Each structure stands twice: as structure tokens, then as C-alpha cells.
């Protein structure tokens, strides 16, 4: 593997609350290669979004406490001061949020909003900035971009708004684009189109992509590598093909089993992992998945190390996953 563009090491995030400290991310480490697409999957509350917001120092501190390091271009993102991190935000690392209906300001024109990062980071003004904005809208597949620049968000449909949001994200040609459930709020056909367009843009601009999702279908289509999070810890990390075909952590297996299969005998019933995700206020001392794991044994009361049965494939389980299923 080439030198990673981003190295996250032992990232820990907790939030102070009246009930005590909520440990949301617990020792997360991963690398991101240039041009790579890394999918981060997990249930709601598994720490996916929070771990990415932390990279750009977008969490309110306090109540949040962020520890660990995230090395990007030789600097630790987590220890940059406000002024320095502002130059990274939107310029080198950009983020796309989930809901296109609310991620645009309703009272300002699309053009104004699209020009914001361009003005902030590239220092373009006036007609040069406008040209760039038109070019960006065209790039994300919005027809007659010059005309639409002066319209307001309510004049755009959901899919079109998400395209605008993506255009804002890529406007400064970032090195890393973080898509936080960027297509979850869209219908399936629009979703497929947007994913296609983001992949094309990624190739064109040479960006690395971090794709946060709980949609394993999307993961299979777009990702190079997958990180499976549970209780703020990595359960499994593998190239996408290995994950879908190879040996798996019991949790990953549960996630895959809960996908509906077309042509299944009982399509009216979806299988789910029984139980609830762990309470971040009271994490089990051992394997966080133990209370819900069908294979749990006494040894699971100790926290499993992230082991690598194959160099590219890491699993946090006391058992060799292939033993469990064969």
C-alpha cells in the first residue's frame, strides 16, 4: 500500500452528559490511501458520523472530548488551532451531509452558497467565481447551470439539491471527500445516479472518499475497503470483496443477513440482529457485541484484539470466523 493520505490512530471520543461520560468512539485506527474509497458502516449510534466530524473539529468541545491523532499531510488534524483547521475544512477535506433538504440555506440563492467555499479558499471573486460555479454545477450534472445559479433551494428537487451540496463539497478540489450518508435521503434511482457521479468525480479529481453509510448495497457498489464499526470500535476491516465473500465477524454476518434477499422464500419477514446496540454510557468490558452474539462464550468477557488472519483483513473476535461458520 502506498503512503496513506490520512492515518487515524487510537481515536477516542466521549461526550459528557448528566448521566455520565458517553464513550462513543473507542480506539479507532485506520488508514486511507490516496484515491481510495473507504466505507464506514455500522448501525445508528455506532460512531460513524461522530468519528468523521471529529476529524474536522466540528464537534463542540466540551461536551465532546476527542483523543488520539489523525495525521494528514504530516500534521495532526486534531491538534490544529481554529484558524488552521478552517483552512483544511472545505479546502482539503470536505463533507457532504445526509439531508439535502436542510443542508442548504433556504434564504440564499444556490449561487451565493456555492460561491462561499470558492471565495473563502480560492480567493476568486466576481465573474471568475461565477464561472467556476457554473462549471461546478455542470460537473455534477445540473442542466442549464448558469440560469439555475440565481434560484433558491426550494426551486430544486431533493436530488438536485444533493448535487448542489456535492458541488459545494468538491468546489475546492479537496483531497478527501467525506460523504455522510449522502444518498440515504434519496430514492433508489437518484441514489444510483448520485453515486455514479461521485465516483466519476472522484476519478477525475483524484480524491479519496470516505463513505459513511448503513447501506451495505451501496458499499458493495462503491467501496474499495470497508470498516465495520460497532460500539465505536472496529469489528472488522477488509477489502470489499473479502468482506462480502470471505470470512466474517459475527456482527458483519448479522448485518448482511438482515438485508432482504430478492426471491427469498419468506419475503414478508426480515431477519434482524436481536437486542440493541450497546449503551455508550455503559459499554460492556469485553467484546461490545457479546450480548447479542450467537457464538458468545466465556472468553468474550475479555476484549478481543483486532487480529489479522490475512494481512489485509482484520477482525476483532476471539474466534477464527471461518471456524464458526464451516
Amino acid at each position: 500500500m502506498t503512503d496513506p493520505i490520512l492515518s487515524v490512530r487510537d481515536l477516542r471520543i466521549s461526550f459528557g452528559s448528566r448521566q455520565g461520560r458517553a464513550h462513543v468512539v473507542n480506539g479507532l485506527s485506520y488508514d486511507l490511501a490516496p484515491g481510495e474509497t473507504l466505507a464506514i458502516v455500522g448501525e445508528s449510534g455506532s460512531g460513524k458520523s461522530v468519528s468523521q466530524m471529529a476529524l474536522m473539529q466540528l464537534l463542540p468541545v466540551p461536551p465532546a472530548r476527542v483523543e488520539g491523532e489523525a495525521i494528514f499531510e504530516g500534521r495532526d488534524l486534531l491538534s490544529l488551532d481554529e484558524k488552521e483547521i478552517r483552512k483544511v475544512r472545505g479546502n482539503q477535506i470536505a463533507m457532504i451531509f445526509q439531508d439535502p433538504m436542510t443542508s442548504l440555506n433556504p434564504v440564499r440563492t444556490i449561487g451565493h452558497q456555492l460561491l462561499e467555499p470558492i471565495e473563502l479558499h480560492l480567493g476568486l471573486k466576481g465573474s471568475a467565481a461565477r464561472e467556476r460555479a457554473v462549471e461546478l454545477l455542470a460537473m455534477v450534472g445540473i442542466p442549464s447551470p448558469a440560469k439555475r445559479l440565481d434560484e433558491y433551494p426550494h426551486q430544486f428537487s431533493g436530488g438536485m439539491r444533493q448535487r448542489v451540496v456535492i458541488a459545494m463539497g468538491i468546489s475546492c478540489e479537496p483531497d478527501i471527500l467525506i460523504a455522510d450518508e449522502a444518498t440515504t435521503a434519496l430514492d433508489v434511482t437518484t441514489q444510483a445516479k448520485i453515486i455514479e457521479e461521485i465516483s466519476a468525480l472522484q476519478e477525475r479529481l483524484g480524491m479519496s472518499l470516505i463513505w459513511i453509510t448503513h447501506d451495505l448495497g451501496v458499499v458493495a457498489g462503491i467501496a474499495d475497503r470497508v470498516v465495520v464499526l460497532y460500539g465505536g470500535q472496529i469489528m472488522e476491516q477488509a477489502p470489499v470483496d473479502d468482506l462480502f465473500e470471505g470470512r466474517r465477524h459475527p456482527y458483519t454476518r448479522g448485518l448482511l443477513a438482515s438485508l432482504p434477499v430478492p426471491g427469498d422464500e419468506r419475503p414478508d419477514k426480515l431477519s434482524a440482529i436481536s437486542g440493541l446496540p450497546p449503551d455508550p454510557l455503559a459499554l460492556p468490558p469485553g467484546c461490545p457485541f457479546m450480548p447479542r452474539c450467537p457464538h458468545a462464550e466465556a472468553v468474550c468477557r475479555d476484549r478481543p484484539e483486532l487480529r489479522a488472519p490475512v494481512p489485509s483483513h482484520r477482525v476483532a473476535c476471539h474466534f477464527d470466523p471461518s471456524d464458526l461458520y464451516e
Partner: protein
Amino acid sequence: MTDTAAATESTQPVAHRSRLQMTVSTVFRNRLAVSGLLVLAVLILVAIFAPWIAPYGVNELNVPSRLEGPSLAHPFGTDNLGRDVLSRVVVASRVSLQVGFIAVGIALALGVPVGLIAGYYGGRIDSILMRIMDVLFSVPAIVLAIAILATLGPGIFNAMIAIGIVYTPIFARITRGSVLSLREAVFVRAARSLGATDGRILGTHVLPNVIAPVIVQTSLSLAFAILAEAALSFLGLGVQPPDPAWGRMLSEGRGFFQQAPWMAIFPGLAILVTVMSFNFVGDGLRDALDPQQRSVIESRGVA
């Protein structure tokens, strides 16, 4: 709202009307608001050209013709010193409007930033700022204004400052309330994630979204500020004699109400018409911009 075919989306005809155009057309469909606007326009013109419109000097004494009823020479009659009531009412409109606009301007300039900062940063800053506002808010408006004037001394400029301070918490509260819901808005987070500074976010993303209730409150507050000035002048704390002010003229006319009711009726009517016009315009603006909001002042019943 869902979209099925991305290609057809942009070809849908959409009404290309800006928010401003929509607001204006809604206001103009409201008859009361339109008549309020017309009256205000006339009032403002009268105030600007008062020295040329007034047929007599404001302090032109003519004791022999004192307490004369309305006539062709003196349409509004004369007061106890023989001064022309019409001239005094006309010239006093300047003071009233001036005090109204400047006092509300002060309240806006203090209240909106306080509300923005308190709402956006939250936490301790919010608590401190809003508790100060609560203290101001807890004292009845006119009593607070009198207390401030007692400290600063009577006079028209001090009256403006006093009224401005009295209305500051209203603007701070309205602004803060709107900012609180915006602070968590995704587009604010998105702007931060794109590298915008706090100042930029407040100015370009938060302020334009809170401006509607603030505009409505401004027009309603103008009415109350004018009323408050009249009350203070009535009590002798605002405009000082011999300068004319509607409130002063009311209090001077009180003593002669049996013999010369016109001394009090005409300045009273002037106050009534002005305040009602501002209220009609404010209500019209509220219907157009902010149908859900009920004025804080209204529920408080001041002045």
C-alpha cells in the same frame, strides 16, 4: 418531496418570484396595511416639510386670541397662550417620528446582536446575556423608562435612549429564539464544514433567516415607541417646553379641557392615527412574513 427522474427536474416551470416580491404582494393585498402605509407616507412627508407646512410659528404667542376654537385662520384652534394648535401638531410630528425611529434603532442595534450571540454560542454567554435581558424585561416598560430618565435626566435624547433600552430585550429574545433553532441547522454545520468563520456564518446564514420576525417586531415597536414617547412627554420627562410634542400638548390641554377641548383632541388624534398606522403595517408584515408569531409586546400589554 421525492424526485424520480433527475433529467426532467429542471424543466418544471417554477415561479420565479423572490421572497421580497412575495412579501410585498401579500402586504399590498391587505387593505389595512395599505392604508397604514399611505397614512405613514403622508405623516413622514409632513414631518419632513413641517416648517413649510405649519402656518404659524410653534411659539408664536398671540394672547388676545387665546383658546379660540377651530376656524379658518386656526383650523385646530389656539391654545392657552394663543399658539396655533395645527402648527404645533405638525411640527411635533417630527419629534414623535424621530424618537420612534431612533429609539427602535437603538433597540435593534443592541438587541439583535445580543440575541445572535446568546443564541449562537449558547452556554454561559447565553445565560449571562439573557438573564440581563430578563431583568430589563421584568420591570414594566414605562416604569423602567421613567427610572432610566430619572437617572439620565429628562430630555428628548435621553428619552430615546430610555425607550431604546426598554425595547432591547424584546429584540434580543426574538432573535435568540430563532437563532436557537438555526444553530443546529444542517446548513449551518455544512457552512462550518466548508471553512466559514463564526462571523460569516452569523452574518450570511443566521441573520437572513431571523430577519423576518425582527422586521415585524420593528414596525410594531415603532408604534409603541411613539406611544411611550408621548407618555413620557405627558409626564414631563420627554420633550421640554417650549418645544411641542404630542404628549406634552395633551398634558397642557388637560387643564383647559372644559373650555378648549381642541387643545387635547388634535394631538391625541395625531398619536392615535400614527400608532394605528404602524400597527396596521406591522400586522400586515406579520401576516406576510411570519404568520405564526404573536408579538411579545402584544401579549405583554405595555404603555
